[in-house]
């Protein structure tokens, strides 16, 4: 199948694939941004336990987490124009990429909602009570106390979601979008150097997701500053007790109170 393997094509295609990276990133960034908004809206009825809306958001979550993204892509691509025809809106001329972005946004919105719910739930109840006791109102307590802590907790999950979204965009080719995977398929079919093309494709994906992971790790360290102070306090105490610095390595950073989950 195809031409004999030639490593030099890997580099050649790497350069040829890079221009399409911006379409991939466009899908990722816009769907993550919209998805965050959607996720927030979907998570609110669950957080505040609003009677009927809560059911709706549960069904939404269940559907988008219970069906593959590929099926959702086709479903929206074929179904949305027909549904919008009911309200006399003709979207037949709208480029497919908008449908793709919308689908990815709704898909990641479901996961974002879960992330927001879990992160807000993970902030200790006593924190809100303490905020109330010093005279803050509900809004102040949320924005000043709960949100910063919830964000730090959510960062690892958020990083995973962004990377998963990046990898999922490889499916957009099935609707004819010329993002990286679509472009690589065209290149591969034209030159018949299948393996080389897909190796360079894998390299690009890997570099981006690896870079994203490192970036989010830095961000997490920054947001968890308030926790690190506790460990430095411990360090000072231990130094006072005359322990050697080597034994401190075991402390790392703990996320506080998560050890006894059982």
């Amino acid at each position, binding site marked *: *199948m*195809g031409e004999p*393997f030639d490593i030099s094509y890997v580099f050649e295609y790497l350069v040829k694939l890079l221009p399409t990276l911006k379409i991939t990133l466009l899908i990722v960034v816009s769907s993550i941004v919209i998805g965050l908004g959607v996720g927030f809206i979907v998570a609110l009825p669950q957080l505040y336990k609003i009677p009927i809306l809560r059911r709706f958001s549960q069904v939404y979550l*269940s*559907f988008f*987490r*219970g*069906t*593959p*993204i*590929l*099926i*959702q892509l*086709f*479903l929206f691509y*074929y*179904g949305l124009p*027909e*549904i919008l*025809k*009911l309200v006399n809106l003709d979207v037949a001329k709208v480029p497919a990429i908008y449908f793709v972005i919308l689908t990815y946004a709704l898909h990641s919105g479901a996961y974002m909602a879960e992330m927001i719910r879990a992160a807000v739930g993970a902030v200790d109840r006593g924190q809100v009570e303490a905020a109330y006791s010093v005279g803050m109102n509900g809004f102040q307590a949320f924005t000043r106390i709960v949100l910063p802590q919830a964000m730090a907790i959510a960062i690892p999950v958020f990083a995973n979601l962004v*990377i998963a979204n990046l*990898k*999922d965009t*490889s*499916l957009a080719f099935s609707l004819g979008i010329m993002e990286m*995977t679509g472009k690589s398929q065209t290149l*591969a079919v034209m030159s018949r150097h*299948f*393996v080389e093309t*897909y*190796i360079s*494709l*894998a390299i690009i*994906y*890997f570099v981006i*997701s*690896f870079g994203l*992971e490192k970036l989010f790790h830095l961000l997490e360290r920054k947001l968890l500053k308030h926790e690190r102070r506790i460990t430095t306090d411990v360090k000072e105490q231990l130094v006072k007790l005359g322990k050697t610095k080597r034994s401190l390595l075991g402390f790392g950073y703990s996320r506080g109170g998560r050890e*006894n*989950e*059982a």
Partner: protein
Amino acid sequence: MKLDFAFIWTAFLQLLTAVPTALAITVVSVSCGLLIGTTVAIIRLYKIPVLHPIAASYVTFIRGTPMLTHLLLIYFGLPIIVDGISEALGLSFRSVSIPMIGFAYISFSITAGAYMSEVVRSGLLAVNRGQIEAAYSIGMTTSQAMRRIILPQAFSASLPNLSNSVIGMLHGSTLAFTVSVVDINAKAQIVASTNWKFFEAYLAAALIFWGLTFIIERLTALAEKRFNLYNRGGVS
């Protein structure tokens, strides 16, 4: 727009014939993945000299690239390797005789292995260190302690992650259409190509996946209840 409910039903019935393929891909990839994952997790936990960096880079690479690229790489790359080896050894076996679904099995197992290794690793790490010390202190050997004390607890701790991975692989099985395996997604296209009612066909496909996911979630909840029995009572 008029939704053709009758066609959704016909499509649904026709799509059911493709469910065994999707389930077969899921089951094979999850069980092979568990095997690979456990091996990799043990290698990484015990930091076995040469294998440890290999295992770590395997997991990083697979988790950093889309499942689709694994499938495409295996589909186009494996025949070259297989043919090269059998030619060098003078065997009559050629890659043409590998069935299409075989590529899906192999590549999805490799994908699942990397994700499963993290599941297994976090499960093993979740078991309290004191448990194995207690097992040693009453005279168990390492393999006894593993089998009787650590693994059951690690299994129940990793059940939620495991079920997520199974659902992920089930959803991933829709990619098999790229190597011409007729799974649910490909079947939906075939069914719809007769009368162009793609929306109805994919609606039926979505319903099937939704149902399958729901069943897996229910089964996990039951299993969790069963395997967490030891944890009942007390205040923790």
